[in-house]
């Protein structure tokens, strides 16, 4: 064996966050604090129409009346919402015609992240709408998409150019007053992505957005709206990395998916926000509201690989409103050191013959806490609803915890619901078997974890699956005692 387990553990604990660097770009930042003026200022800076400003203010007023939720199985120091700057945009704002014009420092950042815009553009065939501190600076492949009638742009651009679509759908799945963080996001969201797939169009490529939190002390409030019109199909990728910061950074995004009749949306996330150092200091707070609405015969599939964030609080949900609609949720959540994750899904069955599948894999190591919290609700009119849920947890060491909190509510006698959960550790015999065949412990663990999470990894698009697999390995190396 190359390493002893002790050494491995040590190496893991001291492993620096690979993507922890800070790009020094002058940015245009609003003063800290939150009040109606700030909300108006954000709206103004983005040159938004009046209805949008009003919409934001409405959300802000609702937010003021709300209290921060405390039911999640996580403990953290609550962020001071008056000590956050709600807007920060890279200073050099003009749109670029080619990549050469982009600030070289910025390009360097992407390089370290391993996403060469250039390369991706040419090789991967992925259109990247890169969000760097809230304003999108590079959007590629727009042309190809435009030919099909697909709109893929930043949400602020959409507000300017497609107000009718935004007005019609924004806030319909996640209302402004939905919850504390959704209300906050509605009031101050700085940017995000917007995507519209017209009737009967199959999006020819995976759409992708990379998020970065860059400026110190800025909250990231992304707003994503994806609309798949009747009979269309889209696969959407979202990936995140954030540079190393000592203070906690807040990320409160809202994602709304709308799948109209016979449409299908596949939404994949690889989340690798900075998790804090090995003493649990720093790290990103990730409080996200993600929800999709399925009309008749539509299908929404959430796939997520969560390896980052100090605190995660995230429940991608499906409202199965239309008859015969399908909701899916595939998740891997990995926590190490002092990370805390409370994540899961909600499947609300409203229509007849609706189906949902939940596969959730939790892996906890170090002193982390990993919770699955899910709701399966079958309404009294949802005839023949079908749900299958499986939540498996893998524990590494006895300083971490794995928790399962499923809520199952059935009000219809034709409902068929199955839920099962298991908790186990990596078997010594499995590792021994690998060792015996010349595979060292570290590789053996990677192999076993890979097998454990395969059901979910398989659901990711190719480009992402590779990255996710690598992330899993990095996050867990040597954490078995």
């Amino acid at each position, binding site marked *: 064996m190359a390493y002893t387990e002790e050494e491995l553990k040590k190496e893991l604990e001291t492993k620096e966050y690979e993507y922890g660097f800070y790009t020094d770009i002058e940015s245009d930042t609003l003063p800290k604090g939150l009040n109606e003026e700030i909300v108006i200022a954000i709206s103004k800076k983005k040159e938004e129409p009046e209805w949008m400003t009003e919409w934001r203010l409405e959300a802000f007023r609702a937010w003021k009346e709300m209290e921060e939720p405390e*039911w999640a199985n996580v403990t953290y120091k609550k962020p001071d919402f008056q000590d956050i700057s709600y807007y920060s945009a890279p200073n050099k704002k003009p749109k670029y015609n080619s990549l050469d014009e982009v600030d070289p420092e910025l390009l360097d950042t992407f390089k370290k992240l391993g996403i060469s815009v250039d390369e991706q553009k040419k090789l991967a065939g992925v259109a990247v709408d890169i969000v760097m501190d809230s304003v999108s600076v590079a959007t590629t492949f727009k042309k190809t998409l435009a030919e099909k009638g697909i709109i893929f742009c930043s949400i602020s651009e959409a507000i300017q150019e497609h107000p009718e679509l935004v007005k019609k759908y924004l806030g319909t799945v996640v209302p402004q007053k939905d919850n504390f963080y959704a209300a906050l996001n509605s009031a101050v969201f700085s940017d995000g992505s917007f995507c519209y797939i017209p009737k009967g169009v199959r999006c020819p490529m995976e759409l992708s957005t990379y998020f970065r939190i860059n400026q110190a002390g800025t909250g990231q409030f992304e707003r994503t709206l994806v609309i798949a019109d009747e009979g269309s199909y889209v696969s959407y990728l979202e990936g995140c990395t954030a540079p190393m910061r000592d203070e906690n950074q807040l990320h409160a995004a809202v994602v709304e998916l709308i799948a109209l009749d016979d449409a299908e949306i596949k939404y994949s996330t690889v989340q690798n926000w900075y998790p804090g150092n090995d003493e649990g200091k720093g790290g990103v707070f990730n409080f996200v509201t993600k929800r999709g609405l399925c009309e008749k015969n539509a299908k929404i599939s959430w796939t997520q690989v969560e390896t980052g964030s100090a605190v995660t609080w995230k429940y991608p949900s499906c409202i199965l409103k239309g008859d015969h609609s399908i909701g899916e949720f595939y998740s891997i959540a990995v926590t190490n050191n002092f990370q805390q994750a409370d994540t899961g899904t909600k499947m609300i069955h409203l229509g007849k013959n609706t189906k949902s599948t939940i596969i959730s894999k939790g892996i906890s190591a170090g002193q982390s806490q990993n919770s699955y919290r899910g709701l399966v609700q*079958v309404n*009294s009119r949802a005839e023949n609803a079908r749900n299958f849920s499986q939540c498996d*947890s893998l*524990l*590494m*060491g*006895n*300083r*971490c*915890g*794995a*928790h*399962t*909190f*499923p*809520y*199952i*509510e*059935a*009000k*219809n*006698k*034709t*409902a*068929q*619901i*199955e*839920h*099962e*959960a*298991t*908790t*186990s*550790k990596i078997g010594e015999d499995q590792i021994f078997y690998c060792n015996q065949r010349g595979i060292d412990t570290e590789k053996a663990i990677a192999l076993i974890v890979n097998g454990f999470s395969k059901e979910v990894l398989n659901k990711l698009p190719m480009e992402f699956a590779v990255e996710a697999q690598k992330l899993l390995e990095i996050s867990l190396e040597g954490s078995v*005692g």
Partner: protein
Amino acid sequence: MDLKEKLVSSFMAFEDGLDLDHPVHEERSRAIKNFETKGFPSKKEEAWKYTSLKSLQKIDFSIFPKQESALEYKDVKKYFLHEIDTYKIVFVDGVYSSYLSETTHDGVDVCLMSSAFSKPMFQQVIEVYFNKAASKEESLTTLNTAFSKEGAYIYIPKNKMPKKPIQILHLATGNEAALMLQPRNLIVAEDNAEVQIIERHQSLTGNEVFTNSVTEIFAGKDAIVDYYKVQNDAPTASLVDNTYISQKNSSVVRVHTFSLGGKLIRNNLNFYQNGERIDSTLKGVTILGDKQHVDHHTLVHHAQPNCESHQDYKGIFGDSSTGVFNGKIIVDKIAQKTDAFQQNNNILLSDKSTINSKPQLEIFADDVKCSHGCTIGQLDEEALFYLRSRGIPKKEAKALMMYAFANNVLESVRIPELKSRINKIIAEKLGVRMGFDL
């Protein structure tokens, strides 16, 4: 005046009749203070999300029955498991009925909490065990502690076993328009002792009854305790049953809960494993109709290594009934090699019935085997067809399948007469004669 105020203000009057120098007095005073601060649990609390006590609080319950009532054995015989000889501790409207009871001090103590509180010979046991397992925080438990006065007291010394099973029966006569009862039971099985207990609450009329019961069970090393709760009460009777079980090394405690009738039933069943190689079993059958509501709230706390727990709850819900299952397994850091299993299966028979299930795991140890499963579904159409194609009418075929569904919970019942009694009640509930003796 709402029920909380009434209870708090009655506490003084209640204490007047008691010995204030008694050590239990302090426990009671502390408990009523806790209840006064917390009040009745509301639906806002996570643990009471699906069960509301609101309507109960509007009823003007009498807390102390005014008149004593005598009952003839022949009138209440059917509520006893009379097929076998048993010790009996019977309460009528919360008052001990010596006429209907059969207690003993022959090697084991099967008697009353009131005498255990007052007689010096029981003092030591009371000091060591009373209110040691029960929660000092949970509001309804502390309400019971505050008014703890009467109930069953069962003490089995080392290496002993009572000659026969023990029945605890609470009867409500309906002399009061609405009656609130708060029995308090203490069951101690010392090392290597064994005991079988059957508990039943029964209202004899259509008057409202609200029982808030607390039972503490202590199982010493290698002790075996079998506890059967028969909940087949009148449709106007509500029950909150709080049971706290503390187990030591290699002990076995099995609690079976048969929830077959009543208006509102809430079972808080808590197991604390304070030793190694412990075996805990929690099983339940729930068959409901009308507007009945049953909430099973279980907790198994694995605090030491090498222990096991088995949970199996089956529910069949018809009409507008509601079933709730909330099971929690906690495995502490040091509780390695824990084997915890939790299962909850439900069948909904009507469009108006509801089931809310919340099986939870909280695990802090890595070398464990913990799993839970929960299903909600219907009877298998193919199996039904199979039975019908062999000449069994639809109703009987359905009943047969439901019976089979519930049956593996009954398998572990160790008193055959009780098993056949429960079977009869189930058959009755399902409205069939199955053509074979259950």
